[in-house]
Structures are given as structure tokens and as C-alpha cells.
């Protein structure tokens, strides 16, 4: 390994909210892992506090949130707020799920950097991460 090697980007992927629809989150987690990222999947029904705890413990640079219950307008901003409270706003938050266009604009204003909606190719998510973290090998 070269001495300049940086560690790969570490990503927490989490299911927030009460729904158990984990098809999307698992497919994305696998694709990111295959793309060379370190991926930690939290499992289901994580509260915003639990997600941020996991991100801090694992020293993650990115949090990816998935939800299909319609509670994204409550829970996504709550994760961003919790990061602010814990002074960890350097952690990038992105999300995916059934999220109407109008909500996407609002969520971006509230600090969710990127949202992926149904039908997004996996490569698009990987490309976005590569662009967002260009210094990292993947």
C-alpha cells in the first residue's frame, strides 16, 4: 500500500422511521460496497439519535437515509438537527425513497445534500459520491 493511501470513504446507511421496506437500502448498500466504499448498514427502525450515534462511533463521513413511510419530512431534518446538536455537521447526509419533488427542494434547504428517487441507477449514486469525495480512491 502506498504511504499516501487514504482510507476509503465510510458510509452509514440507515433505515429511519417505522417501515420495514429494506429492498432499496440493501441494494444501494451492496452497490456502494462493490464500488469500494466502506458501508455499514444499521438495520431497521433507527431513530435520528441512533443514526448519528452510529455515524460518530464509526467515524463515518457520510450518512445515507432510506424511508418509504412518508415520514421523511420529519425524520430527515431530525437527523441533520441531531448532527448540528452533536457538532458533527461535516458529515454529509443524503437520502432516498418515495419523496415527492416539492419535498426534495425543502429537504435540500434543510441540509440534506442529495436525494435519490425511485428509478435511480446505482451508478448515479456512486458517481455522485465520487464527485463529492474526489480525493478518495474508490
Amino acid at each position: 500500500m502506498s504511504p499516501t493511501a487514504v482510507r476509503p470513504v465510510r458510509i452509514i446507511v440507515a433505515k429511519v422511521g417505522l417501515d420495514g421496506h429494506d429492498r432499496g437500502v440493501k441494494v444501494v448498500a451492496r452497490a456502494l460496497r462493490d464500488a469500494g466504499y466502506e458501508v455499514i448498514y444499521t438495520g431497521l427502525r433507527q431513530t435520528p439519535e441512533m443514526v448519528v450515534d452510529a455515524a460518530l462511533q464509526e467515524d463515518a463521513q457520510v450518512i445515507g437515509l432510506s424511508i418509504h413511510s412518508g415520514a421523511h419530512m420529519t425524520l430527515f431534518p431530525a437527523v441533520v438537527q441531531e448532527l448540528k446538536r452533536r457538532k458533527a455537521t461535516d458529515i454529509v447526509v443524503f437520502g432516498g425513497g418515495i419523496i415527492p419533488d416539492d419535498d426534495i427542494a425543502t429537504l435540500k434547504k434543510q441540509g440534506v445534500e442529495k436525494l435519490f428517487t425511485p428509478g435511480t441507477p446505482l451508478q448515479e449514486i456512486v458517481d455522485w459520491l465520487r464527485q463529492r469525495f474526489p480525493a478518495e480512491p474508490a
Partner: protein
Amino acid sequence: MKVRARDTKQAWKEDFEGSPARDDGIETSTISGIPLQPLYTADDLPRRPEELPGQFPYTRGIHPSGYRGRLWTMRQFSGFATAEETNRRYKYLLANGQTGLSVAFDMPTLMGQDSDAPTSRGEIGHCGVAIDSLADMETLFDGIPLGDITTSMTINSPAAILLCMYIAVAEEQGVPASRLGGTLQNDILKEFIAQKEFIFPPAPSMRLVVDSIEYCAKEVPQWNTISISGYHIREAGSTAAQELAFTLADGMAYVDACLERGMRIDDFAPRLSFFFDAHIDFFEEIAKFRAARRIWARWMRERYGAQSERSWKLRFHTQTAGVSLTAQQPELNIARTAIEALAAVLGGTQSLHTNAMDEVLALPTDKSARIALRTQQLIAYESGVANTIDPLGGSYFIEALTDEMERQAEVYFKRIEDLGGVIPAIEASFFQKEIADSAFQYQRELDQKRRIMVGVNDFTVDDEVPIEILRIDPRLEAEQVARVREVRRKRDQARCSKALTGLRKAAAGSDNMMPYILEAVRAYATEGEIMKTMIEVFGTYTEQAVV
């Protein structure tokens, strides 16, 4: 002029191979990956005695008269916001010719918690109706005569509680439980496998299911006590064959559990019902439905020794595939749903839900809900497909594919048995891994354009026009929280505490819990309080997350 007959099959083969083939790189296997021949002929037809509808093993349908006798029930799954708003939607759907009700509950209700629980925040009324106590259930069915309609309730971990609420509302309307018709999903195994709305560990979860089956066999004899569901397994990413195999394996696990309780097979098996997905691969779906009936009939008669024909007959509800819908060019979902619904009908479904075009974005609007219902009416009354019983029976292709579905399911039954049965297989994450693998493979195929989703990875447009979607008023959350608190304040506290104490004792012992749950419901104990009482005895379950 005289045309000399060639060796026709061989000649066709040569002609086919000599013709140019499409080279668009798109898979010619089914969406589940079953390789397909370009042509099926009499050589592919299985050699077996002619099968007829209404006769064992029911490949061609459970009724001798097919849809000539009775059309399928058009049952649109519906529920949002408050009981009051959903009640209005039900009356609208019934006025538009819907023939049965199907209740969608919100996430807190599905997860057995009250609207004022901290983790209910943001979830109330979003993906279904919020029900906290008998008071909400009274509002939900206000003015709807429960003796005259049938109702399906999609709920699992807390299923027994919601059924008791339904029984209690019927009592208030003067309708005895013995007259109630409907279906409770109550299928906890597929929750562990796919949908993940489990609360208790597997053993007490199964006990509750068996308690409700046993109770209904005596007290609510016309009720379908369980709807053994492949829908969620498929939506989580499985193939058609996995959906078929895992669902029927679950069905057999419930049969085993009821037999262990000491019930006689013919006392409960006729009230087991099934629920499948109708995905977009038209023929594969039809084959799946036909294979399901045949497998179940054989297992019930030959392995379990059921004597009653009613125990052999697999009855099922179908919903068109939510996962096949696209947020892009959402109007196309009307066409997708029509194709899927047609497959369900040609597969002989007993009831059907057609998805609305906007369900990939939100819950349906009044308009999209009506188009979805009209799609079924169009199939039933305009297309003519309901006039002939199992019109695809005898098709070289359909019969061969039906056999292939059955063969693949049998391979899975063997693998599940080798793992020690359904529950050990769940604990070993067998189903979960199989499903995740299939989901990932399918997504890869989409990304590589080996599968096409119109409007998503081909035939896209740049100027998507957003469609109108249903919004849930954020104010309703506070209203629902206030309502449940008022119920707690106003009820007879002594009766409620006594009922919950009785339930706790029953849970810790071995009595059937249903009468105790019913008493707690009548005393206006909330869903969350009843669940909490059982959690104190049973504990909760956490799955090992596998990616």
C-alpha cells in the same frame, strides 16, 4: 398449385435460425430469469390426464364455473389520514361499484403503537389510517353495515387486536361475529422474511396467529383467519418462483403449528387464504397462480391428509406490483397495472387490488383511485376475458411454464426442509439473503439495460410534468394525538386495568388470548397499551441485518 408438407417442426427450426434476431441485448428469460424457448409446441405439453376447473388439483381454478358463476371481488386497499377521512373514501369507493373493503393502516398502527408514542412522530396517517382504539374503529365503519360487506385488514403483529376491534364494532351494530366475513392478513412469517413489521419473537408470534385461527374456527367461522402473503416477498425483490415457494412454505408452517395445537386440519384449512403479487411478466404470473393451486392441493391432500375439498382449494387475493410502477411518466402505470390485473384474472384470482398510477409517489387521489377501480371493471365487463374459464389452459407455453414453476418451488421446499423448516431458515437469514440477491441482480440488469423499464432506463423524457398527489394535512397528527388521549381520559379506568391484567395473565399462561384481547378492546384499552402488555411477557425481536 400443390404445396408439399415439410417436416414442419424441423422446417420451422431451420427457418427460425435462419431469420435475423433482434440484437438489442435485452434478456429473453422471464423477469425472474427462467429461460424461455422462442416457441412452445405440443411436444412441451405435459403428459397427464386432462385437468378441469373445480377438480383436483385445481390448476384450472377452484370453481367449476370460473367467473361465469361470480366475478372476482374488486377490493381496493385504502386508508389514509384519520378514521373519519378514510370512512368518507370507503363510502366513495362503495358508491363507485367497489364490492369489498380493504383497510390500510398507518405505520404506528402496524407497529402496535399509539399515535402519541414518540416514534409515531411524522408517521401518523401517512401510509394508511391511524387507529388507536375501538373509538377510531367505530368512526372508520360508521354507516357501513358490517353484516353486508366483507372487509380485509392488512395488519400482522397486532392483527388479533384489530380483528377484536372489528368484532366489537359489529356487536355495536347488532351483527354477531358468526355473520362477519372478511380477511385478516395475520401472516407473521412473511414479516420476518420480507416486510419486517415484526414485534414479538417468532414463537409467541406464532402462538398469537394460532390463537386467532383457533378462536375464529369457533366464533367467526366465515372469516379468513390469515392471508398467507407472497406479495411482500415479491415486492422485497424475490423472483416469482421464490414468491411461490416461500409463501406456500409459510402456509405449511401455519398448518403444522395448528396441528401441533391439536386442531383438526379440515376445521381450519378451508379458512386459510393467500395473497400474491401480479408482476409485469404476464405469462410467468399466470403460471405462478396456476402452480400455486396445484401444489397446495397436492400437499393438503397427500401430505396432510385433508379430507374436505375445501381444504385443498387455494383461494387468493392479488395486488398488482407496486415495485413495477415508475415515478417517471406515471401515467404509464395505468397501462402496467392493466396488464398485471389481466394476468391475475387469467390466473383465476378471487379478489383483486389494482394500484393507482400515483402510488409510487404517495397515496392515491380520488381520481387515480377511481381509474384503478375502473381498470378492473374494464377487464370484467368490456374485455370478454371473464366469459371463458381458464382460457389459457392447454396453451403449450402456459402449461410448460406452470410445470416449471412447480418444479422450482419443490426445489426450494427441499432446501427449507433441510434448514429445519421456515423459522430456523428465517433465523439463518436464508430467505432474506435469497431475496436480497434477487433484488440486487434485477437492479444490475436494469442498470445494464438487459431489462427495460419504460420511462426509467429507456424512452425517457426530459420534461416530466408533475402530477397532482394526495397530501396528508400535517395538522391531523396533533388531532389524532388529542383523540387518543381523550379516549384514555374518558373510559372506565377500572374495567380497562382489569382487562389488561387479565390479558397479561393469559399471555403468561397457555389460554387462548383472543377473549382477553376482545375484553381489553371493549374496555377501550388502546392498541399500544394492549401490545405493551404482551411485550412485557413476550419481549421483542431484533433481526440480524444482512446486506
